[in-house]
């Protein structure tokens, strides 16, 4: 019997589960202490009662550690050096961090157009010697470095000789196109490194002290899991919404649906198509930073079950913030949860306090039951309406995804019959209201309160290896690892390139400790390169990957016996 632990650190609460095969064995919920996430995780683990006598096979955490540190700007200073060459002006895009420009130009195929200027390097290092405030974190990113890392490597080698103690990060390690995003991604990852390593060390130690020696993994925003020390810290941002989608997948095999995960202050939305989550075509955006971090196509809406209700000129509305728990649960002010409690659509809360909360929003003469019911309904209608609008916008965005091949235009994703899957604290309370707005079936699972923790517990590793090969220049690169090398094969490879991709993938997977099963391949793109009406070689693109998914499904039989709740 395999036992998996999943913990999801949310903005308000941290949920944890132990899953034994296809049943939830234990659940726990603790308040999140944003200033001490390590302690939060440990108290969640303690509530699950883990110790050496009751071994688990694996622990997966989804944590907001890196997300918070980035959004709050709590990271060490990083010096960013850019080699932008020509093209669009850097100022055309807004840069949330300062940078310095260095010379050197590489073109779109990775050919050197203009070598870097060594005098400039010498000058910069000299200035640093005289600067007591210099950072020991340095990021170097060149335009088209994902096609040729030559200049980044040259500069790094020079730098290491002069300042061996400096932490260097190079842009080509994020081997996808987009100089702007590559720069910011390299920057953020380097900036989060120390914080993450310390957290990982502490967590390993504290869990070990509890007599638990299960490997600890972390959930990435692309839906995959990796050992704590293998993950690139910036890849853990926004894993919460991802956990929500995976949690839904653990309870909905092979269907197409929209995931709505209602939290305290925000509600996360995602899309699953025939059992596979929709992946965002572009990288994740966090605060002012656009990154290359692969993520599921999710969006967060600033409304949740604990959103404060505020009075505006034209009536009441739901605020983007939370003042505390719902009034009916001992909180300070009315929330949508009070409306749900008053209407009796959720099984928790003090109905007397809920009534009090709603009454406080109305003038004295309107404290009749009919008025209070009307108010509760209109508040939940507003909440459902906001979510419905975002769901439609997200569906539209998915329909508007660009295609670059005729095949893609002739074979669009078919318009499927979607249903909506709601999880989170207010799931049962909002179901009917959402169903009325969207006019599609809205379902709630057996475990709406711990859906994210279930997603974390059952997430499996993802994997991707994208090959870009230019046989004329004799060069290849792998996007995910940033590896670049010489191509020794033929000018017009066919079966050869297939074997090469597989071998590269195996090497990459082994380095990350990932077992390659369930791989899929995108069809290769072959671009004949013609010079003077003669084909001189090819550019080949191919990808082998393991899509995000879950390693098992929860039993959906109705619960037997009494409802046991640890909350």
């Amino acid at each position: 019997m395999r036992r998996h632990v999943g913990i999801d650190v949310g903005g308000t609460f941290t949920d944890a589960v132990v899953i034994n095969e296809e049943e939830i064995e234990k659940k726990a919920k603790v308040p999140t202490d944003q200033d001490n996430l390590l302690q939060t995780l440990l108290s969640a683990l303690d509530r699950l009662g883990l110790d050496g006598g009751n071994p688990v096979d694996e622990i997966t955490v989804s944590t907001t550690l890196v997300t918070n540190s980035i959004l709050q700007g709590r990271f060490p200073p990083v010096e960013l050096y850019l080699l932008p060459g020509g093209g669009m002006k850097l100022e055309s895009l807004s840069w949330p961090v300062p940078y310095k420009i260095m010379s050197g130009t590489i073109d779109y195929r990775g050919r050197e157009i203009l070598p870097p200027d060594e005098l400039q390097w010498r000058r910069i290092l000299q200035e640093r010697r005289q600067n007591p405030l210099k950072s020991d974190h340095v990021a170097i990113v060149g335009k088209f470095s994902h096609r040729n890392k030559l200049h980044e490597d040259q500069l790094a080698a020079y730098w290491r000789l002069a300042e061996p103690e400096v932490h260097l990060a190079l842009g080509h390690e994020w081997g996808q196109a987009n100089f702007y995003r590559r720069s910011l991604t390299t920057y953020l990852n380097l900036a989060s490194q120390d914080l993450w390593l310390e957290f990982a060390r502490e967590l390993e130690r504290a869990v070990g002290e509890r007599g638990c020696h299960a490997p600890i993994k972390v959930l990435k925003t692309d839906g995959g899991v990796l050992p704590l020390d293998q993950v690139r810290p910036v890849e853990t941002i926004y894993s919460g919404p991802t956990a929500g989608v995976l949690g839904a997948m653990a309870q909905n095999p092979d269907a197409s649906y929209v995931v709505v995960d209602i939290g305290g202050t925000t509600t996360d939305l995602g899309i699953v198509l025939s059992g596979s989550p929709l992946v965002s075509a572009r990288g994740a955006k966090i605060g002012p930073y656009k990154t290359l971090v692969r993520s599921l196509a999710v969006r967060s809406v600033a409304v949740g079950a604990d959103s404060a209700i505020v009075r505006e000129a034209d009536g009441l509305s739901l605020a983007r913030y939370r003042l505390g728990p719902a009034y009916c649960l001992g909180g300070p002010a009315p929330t949508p949860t009070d409306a749900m409690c008053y209407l009796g659509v959720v099984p928790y809360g003090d109905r007397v306090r809920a009534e009090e909360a709603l009454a406080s929003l109305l003038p004295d003469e309107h404290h009749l039951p009919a008025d209070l019911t009307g108010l509760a309904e209109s508040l939940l209608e507003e909440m459902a309406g906001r979510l419905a609008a975002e769901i439609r916008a997200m569906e539209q965005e998915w329909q508007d995804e660009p295609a670059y091949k005729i095949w893609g235009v002739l074979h669009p994703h078919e318009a499927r019959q979607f249903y909506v899957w709601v999880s989170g604290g207010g799931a049962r309370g909002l179901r009917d209201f959402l169903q009325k707005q969207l006019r599609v079936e809205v379902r709630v699972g057996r475990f709406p309160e711990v859906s994210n923790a279930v997603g974390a517990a059952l997430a499996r590793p993802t994997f991707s290896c994208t090959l870009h090969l230019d046989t004329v220049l004799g060069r290849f690169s792998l996007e995910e690892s940033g590896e670049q090398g010489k191509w020794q094969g033929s000018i017009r490879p066919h079966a050869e390139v297939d074997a090469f991709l597989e071998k590269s993938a195996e090497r990459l997977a082994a380095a990350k400790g990932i077992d390659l099963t369930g791989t899929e391949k995108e069809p290769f793109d072959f671009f004949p390169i013609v010079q003077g009406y003669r084909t001189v070689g090819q550019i080949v693109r191919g990808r082998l990957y393991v899509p995000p998914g879950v390693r098992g499904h929860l039993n959906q039989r109705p619960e037997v016996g009494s409802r046991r709740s640890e909350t």
Partner: protein
Amino acid sequence: MNKTGILFFPAFDWSLGETHPEREERLLYTQEQLFEEGVFDLPQIRQFAPGMAPLGKALLTQGIFPHPAKHDLTAHLIAAGSTLVLGEALAEGQIQNGFALVRPPGHHAGATVLGNRGFCTLNNEAILINHLRSKYGVKKIAVVDTDVHHGDGTQDIFYHDPGVLFISLHQDGRTLYPGTGFASEKGGPNAWGMNLDIPLPPGTGDDGIHYVLENWVLPRLDEFKPDIVINSAGQDNHFSDPLASMNVTARGYGRITELVKPDLAVLEGGYSIEAALPYVNLAILLALAGEDYDGVVEAEKPTRPQVSFTSLVSRVKELKAEYAQAQPNWVWRPEPYLPDGTWAYIPRMIYYDTEGFQEVRFDRVRKCAHCGGTVFIESRRPPSRGRYALVRIPFGACPQCSQAGYDLWEYLIGRVETVQLQDQAGAQVLFWHLDEGVTHFSTS
């Protein structure tokens, strides 16, 4: 913020032949450049998904003979359809301007289509223009064709159309395919002066082409006051182009875009796919988005000779004189079967370079003071004896011209192999074929 739409459809799985200039690789480096620069992250840029044009929309603009089913139109319908997606976004106010960066191109595809010519089968801009007129009631549209080759297909489609001003700047037809586009080609009898061809000498360069725009094209546009300006943005004026020799740079193209201020730019030719396209496409897009394109500098430098600015200026003066003195090239020729009215007659030969054959055409247009006039085109591909007929009732047709169109349609059925009726005013296309009878095509 003013939005710039981009529809990037590189058709990475389509070519006219492995070593053909119109092949998979053509926009590959443009993609690399645009993606790496992060242009899609510019807040004012909005990317659109490609679409497929219904055949009826193409048939409202072009006669496809002997039958649409005889042509492989898929890629062309996607290029045209993608142009329509962006055109609708413009008409509905979602974007302020846009760039349809799509292949295959279209500006050599004319009023009749017997095959592929100059890599074009369907005319993306022309189909878009007629769509904007039929769906949104746009009245006045101008096309500025800055491809190095004469936009003969677009000219052919709108030659008798007083609602469309067509301006083409190109390398002199005596030195380059398709060998047409002289200053004397001013339009048909009901649209005289609505066609402006400016054939320029090889080596015109950035300054030369900007001079022509500022001193001839822009004043003509100001005079016409179009509701929408479309730029057929071919990129073979570039100094690295293997076939032409106009010596324009990527930044020169950026400036062209700034001067013409098109509502929509549509990619046409340009086959210097490494030395030009990644840079020119970037410069055009940045110019449309109102961003600085001054840093867009090619890896290569121009090496070809350039004509001096003074000799270019005097050449333009000669061309203006030639244009002013041009005389109509049609004759008035009555035929017993033609409906009431005075009919101009223009015989033509059109060469299809892709497959190497000639189309023989007899074009006729009914003189009309109220509308663009009924157009009747008879087409043949010798040595085949089959004759194809295209009858067009123009947008805003008067009752007489409309009646004349339907009279011709009825007269022609059974007398030729194929008859196509483009009722642009009534938004319908009727297609009669010897073996199949009449087919209705929806144009919406």
